[in-house]
């Protein structure tokens, strides 16, 4: 050969081919899976909801870009994880949260929860949920003010007529009296109303009808948790693309159901309300903060379910999903020790009990 080709040839250790799946393609799938819930949220809460999502995403992306510029680290916004975090923050706060508050939450998620720990892959806590916890503690009033979704008419008399606790009635009716604000089903349950009353309040003819209404997404709440149907649609997309695996969603939802049933709560109501299903597919499955091993994932999911039910039944908040996942995030490194049996693993022989006198 006259011209030596070696100058142009790459040398590297095998493998020499790679799967086309990349971090950014995985993040893009998550964005796609969130779109049905997002569009429905915008339909329910109007142009303000759209602004909320856009502000949150923009703050997250720009925040990450600027922070990494300042600390002279490589730019990572192309991996798409900031877009996902931004969307998630907007979807899990009350729909009419002031935009500056949403932006603050987004910045907290990206900079304090993610970048302070070293960026994507190094954060011990789920950024969006930690941001929600931060906002809830900083602005308790705004973070518990719920807006009536478009087209929902509530029947306040359902609550006043049969109420047992005067305090709860007062609180609920004062909320209901406001034409804009309302209470979430979980908030009402926390105010000691019965499910039949709550169903009536939201205009459902029966409990079964109410469950259907919750499933389809016709109740006050954060944008993301509105329609179980659309969450499942996004979740199934992620499952079918192999972006997430079934273990965590099934163990979170299943254990929430079982623990609620054990504690005498209505298990169907428990999983249909609040953020259980949304978190099971989009929060608990967060790669970075969930355990890696199958057994660890089962225990993680069960732990989340248990804490959700405990907080809802005994806690001061009506909803417990955020803290349940954040608490289980702490245990993740320990759950990673529960490994699958290695191929060809042979258990070391049990030490034979030394027979007296035979040791020499």
């Amino acid at each position, binding site marked *: 050969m006259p011209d030596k080709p070696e100058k142009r040839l790459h040398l590297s*250790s095998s493998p020499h081919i790679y799967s086309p799946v*990349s971090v950014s393609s995985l993040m893009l799938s998550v964005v796609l899976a969130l779109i049905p819930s997002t569009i429905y949220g915008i339909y329910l809460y109007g142009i303000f909801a759209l602004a909320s999502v856009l502000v949150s995403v923009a703050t997250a992306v720009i925040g990450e870009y600027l922070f990494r510029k300042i600390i002279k680290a490589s730019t990572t916004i192309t991996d798409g994880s900031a877009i996902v975090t931004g969307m998630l923050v907007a979807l899990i706060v009350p729909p009419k949260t002031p935009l500056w508050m949403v932006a603050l939450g987004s910045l907290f998620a990206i900079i304090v929860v993610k970048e302070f720990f070293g960026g994507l892959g190094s954060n011990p806590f789920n950024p969006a949920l930690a941001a929600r916890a931060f906002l809830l503690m900083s602005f308790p009033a705004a973070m518990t003010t719920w807006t009536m979704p478009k087209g929902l008419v509530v029947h306040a008399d359902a609550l006043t007529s049969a109420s047992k606790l005067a305090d709860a009635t007062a609180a609920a009716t004062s909320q209901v009296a406001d034409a804009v604000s309302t209470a979430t089903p979980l908030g009402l349950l926390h105010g000691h109303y019965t499910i039949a009353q709550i169903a009536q309040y939201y205009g459902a003819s029966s409990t079964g009808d109410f469950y259907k209404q919750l499933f389809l997404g016709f109740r006050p709440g954060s944008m993301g948790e509105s329609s179980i149907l659309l969450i499942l649609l996004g979740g199934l997309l992620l499952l079918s693309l192999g972006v997430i695996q079934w273990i965590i969603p099934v163990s979170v939802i299943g254990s929430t159901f079982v623990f609620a049933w054990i504690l005498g709560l209505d298990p169907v109501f428990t999983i249909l309300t609040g953020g259980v299903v949304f978190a099971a597919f989009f929060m608990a499955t967060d790669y970075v903060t969930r355990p890696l091993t199958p057994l660890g994932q089962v225990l993680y999911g069960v732990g989340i379910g248990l804490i959700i039910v405990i907080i809802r039944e005994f806690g001061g908040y009506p909803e417990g999903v955020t803290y349940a996942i954040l608490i289980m995030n702490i245990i993740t490194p320990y759950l990673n020790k529960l490994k699958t049996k*290695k191929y*060809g693993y042979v258990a070391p022989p049990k030490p034979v009990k030394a027979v007296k006198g035979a040791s020499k």
Partner: protein
Amino acid sequence: MAIKTFRGGAHPPEKKDRSGGLAIERIGDVKRVFIPVNQHFGAPIKPIVAVGDAVKRGQKIADGNGMMTVPLHASIAGVVKKIEPRLLCNNQEGPCIVIEAQEGVAGDEFMAPLDAFSCTKEEALERIRAAGIIGMGGAGFPTHVKLAPSKPISLVIANGAECEPYLTIDERTMIERPEDVVEGLAITMKIVGAPEGVIAVEQNKARAVPLLEKAISASPRTRDGMKMRVQVLKTKYPQGGEKMLITALTGKEVPSGGLPMDVGCVVDNVGTLCAIVEAFRDGKPLIERGLTLSGGACTKPANVVVPVGTLVSDLVAAGAAQVNEDGLRKVVFGGPMMGVAVPNYEIPVQKNTSGVLFMGKEEVRPAEEEPCIRCGRCMRACGCSLSPALLAVAIETNNYKEAEKIGLMDCIECGSCSFVCPAHRQLVQKFRLGKQVLRTMKQKEKEAQNA
């Protein structure tokens, strides 16, 4: 028939249609060969010819003592021109015997045929060693050692899985020489005393199955009562790995640190089985082999049989395959998942070279490592049920004790983890280095104890 497989694995693009339909071409008129002296896994051997000697095709030119050695034979007739170190396909220099064809020097020097079914086991093993046969699937383990296991063998597996993308030489061998594959399997079963033999074929090579089944039913060995069959396996990488193959076929797992014989199995590549048949039937040593020439920058791929020691550059110059020099970015000896990238292709084909790939720009992506996002894809792809993400952390933090505990030495280096990693982490590459570090550490510990 149920299709079997193992747990885990990856699905790299197969790319076998490029050469799977091309019949094996014999490249006859090779004028010079550079035969690497040490191609086998084991103790090095020494040349027994000198520069200037005329040698016949099949004549022994190097040998050594010891269990883990096999002799080497001239792959063409000619004159020994040089004995010199050259860059080999493992990217290290090793001694090569250079033979050039010369007027007046011709002829073969093969051994006398031997009937594998009437000779003793010792005679049979000696014949396989004398023929210089090593595992042709890649590792180059001496076959006579593999066929003398210290444990009883219940199953001989003919490995026709060929799970590496691009490579089609095993597929073509099974299609074109099914009788030899079956005969080789029967000989191997006879030597190790196994009651059963299975030819394992991945689903994407299903067209070889009826041919093999026909060859089995027509074989005189079947009439003599030997039990052989074909098993179809799911197309999945690394299905052709010894451990995965055994687990797919028997459900048993080769114990950690153990060998296939620990679960009563012997695995031989179909190409090796054909070489065994030739060693007995024709007395022909392993002096030529089939390989696939392919890859994205290979405009005319081919399956060829060439003398051992032929330079790949000579093959290309002779037109056996055409390469788009402008688009060429990487040359790989072996498959794209486990093969070795070499700096040029003036490198000789060895007994264990199953293919040479000319890879193009669009395939060779110089990927930059991003941080691990802990997606767990590597863990699901690992055929050994290891946790590559956690192993990598252990190695990066120099925690070799932990790495060993969670299975570093069990890694078969198949590369599935690196293939699937969306963050392009160099996982298997770290494990290769880590295994070496761990071996060195153990060696030092041992020396310290002995001192």
